């Protein structure tokens, strides 16, 4: 265990700023195909939902595009992580899931991941399926379900958004670690490698999840203060809640 910790400490300086995405070429072909197969049904459902919504409201498609651009920008922003002494970046899917729902958020994350893979080499085309599953599907659903669950239990908007952001980020990292371990393990046993990868990520990602939670809460609180109409339109809060708060 001590050796494991020392080696994890050795690996920390190499922990990349954009480790949220699995880089192009890491996964062998069968794994890349398998993750694509896992991601496709969710993207298809997202597209179906988008088509239904954009028939009712023509502005929904441009809105989804612009939100994809926002997620792209947020996940390109370096955030200093105090414990690791490096910079990392939030994923932004928790925020998108709260505002637009998990299916639309999965689609938005897919678009954002495609653009990042093509133009910034963050992630890749061969690993797009795996990245959609971890960041798009698991991140979005973890964030959305946490937010809705906490709100139904009476939590305040800020607390629910904070924990949704935290959950979305940590769930994404757990999934990324799982995907990485299964893809690069070779003849090695799976669980010990998963443990090592998670251990190497923990010092960066644990605080980063909290930062992402704070960012999501800050965003929702700002929207409630300045533009509650957006939250009402997206069914995040009820119209009565805005009136009650003055």
């Amino acid at each position, binding site marked *: 265990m001590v050796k494991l910790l020392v080696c994890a400490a050795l*690996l920390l300086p190499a922990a*990349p700023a954009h480790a949220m995405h699995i*880089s*192009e070429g890491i996964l062998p072909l069968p794994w890349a195909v398998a993750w694509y197969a896992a991601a496709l049904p969710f993207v298809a459902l997202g597209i179906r939902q988008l088509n239904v919504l954009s028939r009712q409201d023509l*502005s929904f498609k*441009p809105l*989804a595009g612009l939100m994809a651009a926002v997620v792209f920008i947020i996940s390109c922003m370096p955030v200093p992580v105090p414990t690791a002494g490096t910079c990392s970046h939030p994923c932004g899917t928790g925020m998108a899931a709260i505002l637009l729902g998990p299916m639309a958020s999965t689609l938005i994350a897919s678009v954002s991941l495609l653009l990042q893979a093509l133009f910034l080499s963050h992630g890749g*085309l061969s690993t797009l399926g795996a990245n959609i599953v971890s960041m798009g599907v698991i991140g979005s659903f973890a964030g959305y379900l946490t937010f809705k669950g906490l709100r139904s239990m009476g939590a305040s908007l800020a607390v629910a958004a904070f924990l949704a952001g935290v959950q979305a980020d940590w769930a994404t990292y757990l999934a990324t670690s799982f995907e990485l371990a299964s893809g690069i393990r070779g003849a090695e046993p799976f669980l010990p490698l998963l443990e090592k990868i998670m251990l190497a990520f923990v010092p960066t990602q644990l605080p980063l999840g909290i930062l992402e939670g704070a960012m999501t809460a800050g965003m929702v609180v700002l*929207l409630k203060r300045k533009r509650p109409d957006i939250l009402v339109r997206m069914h995040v809060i009820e119209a009565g809640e805005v009136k009650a708060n003055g």
Partner: protein
Amino acid sequence: MHQLLKHNGDCLLSHIDGRIKLLTALALLVMVLSAGGWQFPLATAGLCITVCRIRGVPVKTLLLRFAEPCFIILMIVLLKLFFTGTTPLFTFHLNGLQITGYREGLVEGLMIGSRISGAVAVMAALVIFTPFTDLMAALAWLRVPRSFIDITLFAWRYLFLLFDDAKVIYSAQKNRLGYSGYRKGLRSFGTLTGTLVIKAFDSSQSITTAMVQRGYDGTMPMLKQKPFRSVEIAAGCAFLTCMGMLWKI
């Protein structure tokens, strides 16, 4: 970011049909991912980087593209070196602990590293020599759903505007000591994100109004594809045959 988003539009490669370039890149990607050794991925990386350099792609652009993958390669090689294998390659002591690097781990790590560099180089070459709209048209030709393409086009079109807005807000916050402590930094980052979301919502409304006035009915007009040119198909096939033979070896 602007440096990475530029494409090289002034060379022969840029004028080749986007569909042929995309199919060739996908075939190369499959070969790189399924290669049994490190030679083919590295040869592919070398070829793509050489073509980029010959066609005048600045070294800075390539370095920016490879910065993150290089970090990941380093991390994976270290992870594999210290944790995989049984044949010791070297041993050192750190605070009384014996750390051993293994031969099998190093070989495996370098194999994965070569795959990453090959795949990243293929994608870099594809994107640098293909205009974005051609790439999207090629994806549409490959039956990627239109809604997905539409959103990607919207995102692409307004990415730069939002990015510039984000830069202005960030600079203003920084000048007012908005990032002078973690607490303040978090609040500023939340405000920045919220402001971007508000801008996205407002822009989507004004964009829709403007587009509806121009006849927008929920679908975006896509670029018309030109017919395939036999010379380009032949060149693509010849190139892939050569690479396929290398892959087989």
